[in-house]
């Protein structure tokens, strides 16, 4: 395993990391105060739940599917966390229940996609609308207040609470990164995404793997919703708007192929960091936030275009070497 093969194996991640580095250098030149520790801490805390959701999304996209209902799942889990906390459930039960609710919603998507063979983009589009409108109907837009003292930061206080949120997200990230590469079950996600039929012939139950990807995605969304909710003392009725796009964009910018079978959560981590940095960085540099969406769109396009062009270049070089 020489240095060259490390670079060629992680080319996509490295190129995203390089773009991120360029962005950071630009910000460092234009607005050095961006790197104040307090700001970096806030960035980490604010993007922790996005990272968890994006890690789950990476699994789903690796199997060649997509889940655009996560924003709505996130909203329902947030609201459920508020209701359950108010009813005075013990902390451990609360955490488990919210994660379970997320997993059940993920399982519904998994059932439709993996078992019934409905295209994931359509199935989760329908679920996105159903979950969101069901919550709106049930909650009528009301917020949950009067939560117990130990809800915010799980009663740990702000400093430890923030550490907990970030560490939890990093543990999820590390666990997924490790198991994707070191566990047989992790390799299944790649196998199914590369070629479901070949995977089936190799003895992998591809429906089961896809279904699991959705369940894990749902459970992680539940966890992310909870970790986001405990940062505040009130629970809103409309959380997670646009979260699905954020997560998908981070995964794609991170080099994961939308067609499945290729990508790493390390790339996703950099993608989350890149997209999470742009918004605040614009304010720091003094660019008007009107242009934020346009810049985000450009970055997504630039990421995929450069990816394809680089692949073409390297294939061409290989041809030349071969001939």
């Amino acid at each position: 395993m020489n240095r060259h093969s490390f670079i060629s194996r992680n080319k996509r991640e490295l190129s995203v990391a390089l773009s991120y580095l360029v962005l950071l250098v630009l910000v460092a030149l234009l607005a050095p105060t961006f790197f104040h520790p307090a700001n970096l801490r806030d960035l980490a805390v604010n993007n922790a739940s996005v990272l968890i959701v994006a890690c789950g999304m990476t699994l789903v996209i690796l199997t060649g599917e997509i889940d655009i209902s996560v924003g709505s799942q996130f909203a329902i889990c947030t609201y459920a966390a508020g209701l359950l906390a108010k009813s005075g459930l013990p902390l451990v039960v609360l955490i488990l229940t919210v994660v379970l609710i997320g997993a059940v919603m993920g399982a519904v998507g998994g059932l439709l996609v993996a078992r019934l063979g409905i295209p994931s983009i359509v199935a989760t589009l329908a679920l996105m609308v159903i979950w969101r409108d069901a919550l709106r109907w049930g909650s009528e837009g009301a917020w949950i207040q009067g939560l117990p003292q130990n809800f915010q930061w799980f009663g740990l206080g702000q400093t430890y609470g923030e550490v907990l949120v970030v560490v939890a997200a990093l543990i999820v990230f590390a666990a997924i990164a490790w198991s994707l590469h070191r566990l047989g079950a992790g390799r299944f996600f790649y196998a199914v995404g590369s070629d479901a039929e070949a995977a089936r012939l190799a003895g992998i139950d591809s429906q089961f793997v896809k279904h699991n990807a959705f369940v894990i995605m749902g459970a992680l969304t539940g966890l992310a919703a909870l970790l986001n909710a405990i940062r505040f003392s009130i629970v809103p009725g409309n959380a997670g708007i646009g979260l699905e796009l954020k997560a998908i964009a981070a995964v794609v910018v991170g080099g994961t192929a939308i067609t499945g079978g290729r990508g790493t959560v390390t790339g996703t981590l950099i993608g989350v960091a890149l997209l999470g940095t742009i918004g605040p960085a614009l304010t720091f540099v003094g660019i008007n936030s009107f242009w934020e969406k346009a810049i985000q769109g450009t970055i997504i396009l630039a990421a995929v275009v450069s990816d394809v062009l680089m692949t073409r270049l390297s294939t061409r070089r290989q041809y030349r070497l071969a001939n």
Partner: protein
Amino acid sequence: MNSNTQLAPDLKLIAPWHLRAFPNREWILVVVLLFECAIFSLSGDNFLTRSNAFEITRLSVEVGLLALALTPVIITGGIDLSVGSMMGLSAVVLGSLWRDGHWPMSLAIFAVLVLGLIGGALNGLLIARIGLPPLIVTLGTFSLFRGIAEGLTRGIENYSGFPPNFLFLGQGYLGHLVPTQLVVLVVSIVICAWYLHRTAFGRTLYAIGQSPEGSRYAGIPVGRNLFAVYLSSGLAASISAVIYVAHLGQAKSDAGTGFELMAITAVVLGGASIFGGRGTVLGTVLGLFAIVVLQNGLRLSRQPAELAGILTGGLLLITLVLNRLATFAGGQSRVNTGAEELDVRNSQVAVLSGVILLAALVVAGSNWLLVRSIQHGPQNERPINSSSKSNHRIQVAMMPKAKGDPYFVSCRLGAEEAAKELGIDLLWDGPTDLDPAKQNEVVEAWITKGVDVIAVSVENQAGISTVLRKAREKGIKVLTWDADAERNARDFLINQATPQGIGYTLTDEAARILGNKGEFAVITASLSAANQNEWIKFIRARLAEKYPDLKLVTVQPSEGDRDRAFSETQTVLKVYPNVKLIMAIAAPAVPGAAEAVKQAGRTDVKVTGLSLPNMNKPYVKDGVVESIVLWNTTDLGYLTVYAAQALISGQLKQGDHELVAGRLGKIEVVDDEVRLGAPFIFNKENIDRFDF
């Protein structure tokens, strides 16, 4: 992936007529449509009328055009998420060329169509030439187009005042019956059907959807044809934008938000396979009407708007599942299901059907109870001062800007209280999110339904006024509350506070907190929110006029999201260390900003703004939120219903100077405005007295 294969290519020779007409079981939709019509003709008022039929088609034109353009895109196995954003971009470009560029309307429209082609060409280039996945490319252009639209207009610009002959395109009737834009839709349907089903080009699209590689070997110019498909989808988006602008009479950067999802839903509901190779124009049209009729019918049956979303999603899933099961059950044994061979046990199907059925029952049941409790509540206690002469109960239809917004939820409480006291039937419906197009649809439905009074909190002045005038022509009394329409489009305005009053009160409050000197930042709703932009205008005016030492350093968006307001405030606090006051002017933004200030430990920074007392109580008591400015929203809803009743009974007419409104007592009336009073400032001392 391409396992959802079309029926055998020699279908035409051997298949019976119903397979030829409905190759993808589109007849299911015909059944659904008939079923919907049957139910709604029983439950809805005036559902089965000629004018309602045309109204339904008018509302479906914009989405319909997008759905038609997306049909070939999806048949080739692609997708275009950028069409809604392209509408936004086209709308603002049309507006600015016409108003700021002084271009003639026809030339501006032409330029916009070219713009649509350019946007489509960008998608086509990246997808067909470079070979990127359509989902990702159009996800990128989805952000890009909307972003450019917001950047160009700085989110603020709202173009209106278009010439009448242009508005005729979106609001007029041909022969007093047929909505003008329907012609555009019908022509587009014919063209699209012709190209897709009757030309060689159309057949190549199916081939590409089946297998792009195979098509290339068969000599089909795959890249060129794909390019053409995305080009036409960009063009359709810009045509749709022109009609949208003519329909609503305004052009703003948020035009067409979410339309892409509705269009995709219609196409997929119509039997097109998202994997490509399957789909018909007939199916798309049926799918479109299945959705639109559902929404319209639910409105006429006074069901909540959220139910429409749930049922649309459910309908989509059920048709797909049925389709899948039917394919699986046989009849198409020739179809190569290969890797995707369905491994569904009967028990799983039973469980799924059970869950769906159960959910439907729960929804239906709870809804029935809800409707019953609303209808029967007031009936049991007959009002003493009911002014309705006959046994006809007055129907007052009241619309908020967005149903889920806590602000409007609290208005509803007061409205229901008043309706109960007066024995009035209160209909409360509106868009679930801010959506000017939806507001027009709801008013149209209420006109068809034939309510007595329509009271609207207006999101888009120019757009809704036409519809409101139509309501007045039909003898319906029209009120506006919270935000006004054009003056001749309504009888009275229930005015809680003018934008000027709000802007000035907020600025004065900021000056008081800061001691007339210092820097502050504004956290607004979205950058294109009309109300907030109006307030910011008056805030700036007040600053210039009275407080030269007070400085507004930045305006940041919260998108109506508490968490976004939180992170924006964190950034503002760091970038502008001299900011000593955050003024948040959207209800969810105040608690978000307050939490950010609190967590940053910046005790020198205060928060004020426009929000509801309840969600801010903890922060007001902590002293983070110094004060919030608002009127009593419950009273606003209460007063509106009282004014509606007085209007019907003739107690309120032009030239009156006061109105007696139940527990509120005498309320001042000036010209055609009923005034609730000045904005109220909630602070530590008084906030506990309010509960909304």
